[in-house]
């Protein structure tokens, strides 16, 4: 950047202030003008609303704004107060726009420099038509990534920054704009969750524990169940392999919310399973499949197996068929029994190929919203926990309840960050693992 400034002529230097000037001088009129237009639009936005929004973000941090009711003294007139939520949202939008603008600014300077260099070397700077053409050739990535980048910036990055910031405010049910203001509170939310003396941490730690427990049990039960099922279907002497596979794939193809809702209604107090068990004389009282603290946990794990085993089975059958048959033959000749063959050949091979899948699955299960939400909704509720949280709640479902039911956005955001930390940790493990896998010569 500095080099460009030093080497460039007067127009290049000026184009640091007036975007696109350098391009225009070298004959790239359309390009130059569009850079200029972007600059003007940005500054217009900044001077009309942007700067104001930004300055308010700062004052959100000082205590003087907090808890002041927006009533003018004197005659009793209610004036419209500040809306902390909107201030924060627009502040984030302005910051993102500013970063985007600076990116454009840098691009315009590079582009101007390139035009200048072309002139210096005696070539004609590429005109507008050439630029458009290059969008379909060397610069195709700009064409292809423009929409995704815009989409991700608007609907993912911006909301995410907004919510991350929220974790450091006190935007809970008692501080709801527009009636009330909320303000920055630093790390208080994290401290409240982690410390050992209040109801929040009494909720957080058990839920975190159950989330981890659930993640591991759900992942490995489906994984081994799926491998086992695939091995049975693929084993010699089973006719109609396709039919068997289709039976299981059918349950997997049904949208999971439907199968979960159906299973939920079947397992209810008056659901068909309890009714049949009573009719057959197995039980006299309904089994609390979804309402007992322990039985609900067992039920969600079993139902999750019902959904997850076919998925693993389908994925794994292809891999199973890839295992070289000679390995099994030589093992048989050496007198290995089926258990030994599994632990020494099948399983290591599977593990080798499916480790990344396994870990993505693990992270997916930590965040397995659907199974819990549709089956138990986190119930049974308990008074030991913070309002609304129940014994089968995972961190994600608790997060959902905090945003949707109790409107404690700050806590929800804090938990979101905790989930991010968990996912990131496990992803890092995969990342280093899969690199190690790549370095190896492969199985055997």
């Amino acid at each position, binding site marked *: 950047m500095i080099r460009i400034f030093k080497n460039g002529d007067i127009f290049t230097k000026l184009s640091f202030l007036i975007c696109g000037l350098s391009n225009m001088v070298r004959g790239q009129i359309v390009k130059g003008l569009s850079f200029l237009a972007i600059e003007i639009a940005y500054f217009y936005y900044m001077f009309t609303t942007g700067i104001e929004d930004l300055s308010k973000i700062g004052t959100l941090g000082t205590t003087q704004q907090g808890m002041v009711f927006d009533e003018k003294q004197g005659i009793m007139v209610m004036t419209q107060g500040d809306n902390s939520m909107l201030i924060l949202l627009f502040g984030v939008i302005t910051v993102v726009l500013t970063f985007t603008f600076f990116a454009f600014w840098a691009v315009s300077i590079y582009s101007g420099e390139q035009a200048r260099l072309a002139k210096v070397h005696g070539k004609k700077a590429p005109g507008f038509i050439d630029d458009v053409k290059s969008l379909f050739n060397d610069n195709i990535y700009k064409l292809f990534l423009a929409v995704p980048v815009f989409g991700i910036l608007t609907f993912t990055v911006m909301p995410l920054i907004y919510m991350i910031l929220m974790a450091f405010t006190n935007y809970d049910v008692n501080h709801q704009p527009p009636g009330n203001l909320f303000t920055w509170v630093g790390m208080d939310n994290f401290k409240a969750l982690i410390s050992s003396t209040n109801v929040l941490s009494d909720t957080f730690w058990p839920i975190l524990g159950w989330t981890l427990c659930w993640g591991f049990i759900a992942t490995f039960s489906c994984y081994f169940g799926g491998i086992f099922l695939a091995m049975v279907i693929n084993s010699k002497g089973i006719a109609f392999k396709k039919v068997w596979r289709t039976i299981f794939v059918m349950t997997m193809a049904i949208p999971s919310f439907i199968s979960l809702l*159906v299973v939920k209604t079947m397992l209810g107090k008056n659901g068909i399973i309890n009714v049949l068990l009573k009719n057959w004389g197995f039980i006299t009282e309904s089994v609390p499949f979804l309402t007992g603290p322990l039985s609900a946990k067992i039920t969600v794990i079993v139902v999750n197996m019902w959904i997850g085993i076919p998925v693993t089975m389908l994925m794994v059958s292809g891999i199973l068929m890839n295992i070289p048959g000679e390995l099994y033959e030589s093992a048989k000749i050496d007198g290995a029994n089926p258990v030994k063959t599994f632990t020494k050949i099948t399983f290591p091979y599977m593990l080798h190929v499916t480790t990344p899948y396994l870990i993505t699955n693990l992270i997916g299960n930590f965040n397995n919203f659907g199974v819990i939400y549709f089956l138990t909704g986190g119930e049974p509720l308990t008074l030991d926990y913070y309002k609304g949280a129940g014994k089968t709640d995972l961190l994600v479902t608790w997060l959902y309840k905090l945003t949707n039911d109790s409107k404690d956005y700050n806590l929800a955001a804090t938990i979101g960050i905790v989930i991010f930390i968990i996912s990131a940790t496990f992803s890092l493990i995969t990342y280093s693992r899969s690199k190690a896998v790549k370095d190896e010569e492969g199985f055997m």
Partner: protein
Amino acid sequence: MNKIVIGMNLKYRIPALLSLAAGFIAMFISVVTVGDKSFNALTMATMTMAGSKFTYSYAMIVALYVIALVLGLILFFMPGKLVGKCLAVVSAAKCVSVTLVMFMTKAVVDSNAAFGGKFMVKDFSLGYWLMLVLSLYELINVLKINKINTGYILLTVMSIVWLFPILWIVLTSIRKEQGYYVGYFFPKGYTIENFTNLFKNNSVIPFGKWWINTFIVASVSCVLVTLIILMTSFALSRVRFEGRSLFMKIILVIGMFPGFMSMIAVYNILKGIGLAQTLVALVVVNAAGAAMGYYICKGFFDTIPKSLDEAAIIDGATRWQIFTRVTIPLSKPIIIYTILTSFLGPWTDYIFPSMVLGDKQSMYTVAIGLKWLTDFQRIDTYYCQFAAGSLMVSVPIVILFIALQRFYVEGLSGAVKG
């Protein structure tokens, strides 16, 4: 006795016969103890034949035991393939009957005053459990004699478990008696009104509208999402440019945040641009986040040899032409996989639509609508219609999925290979 028959494994004859004989003896010891009276299988058989709804349940078991014993003895002295196969059939039938009787005994005992009492499963005594375990063990050994894979037993049991909820929902959808609570599995009357009611104009449940809403959202999202994923993957896989790995890393990090953490903010933005409570919002958000799921498709593109691109460039092709003429034609499995997943996504999505659409019922998608029907206030009235609606949603998807299963597997296993 050391005979050898090709295609049979006669060494399993002994355990098979022993368990058969032991089971036969178990018939004569107490099978059911109601109160202080106990009954063996033979008395059960004679008593049930005297006027119960399940007339022959125990009689059949006794008969099957006798036939099996005869066949077993023949097999022992004159082994042959035909006898082996017959024994396998009888053995399997016996195993199924003994298991089924577990569910019928209560009806048998309760309907016959001679037993004098109500039945609970704990009333089964040693004889029954011996029969159950021994007939299973016998079946395994008989299958082994015939060199039939014993995996069939397991697959049959698992299939029943897996198909049970599906069968239940199918039966409920055509059940004539409405209501959530019924005391039996098979309906007393059948009707298709549950389906037709869903699409009636004056129906309380605008299911037809929901279905069309979802279909529109799914199709439009599907087109947009597929295009965006293909383009993103192509750019990231085939073109090397500055900031490429940074872009991929940023997406990786963003992807680790739980998706609906920022939902409330997205909702505010949508409200700001006037799209709250519309279907357009769902399409826009689906398309906007599409690029985040580029991994599998990029993984597939990575496996297409670079030399093809180079050859095309030498022939004067532009990148655009490479994309449309080389990469796309070679990527049929992954394109179908992407279309399939991006079409199915909106069908099953619940959380985000429910937040965006709020209480605007006419705009609901099927997921929100069906969940709304299972609410405790509505479940009693609408349970059968809920079942019919579930089938209306699932059946097309299941057919689509099974038809395109191959591509799904190829897409997934491509991802595993990296």
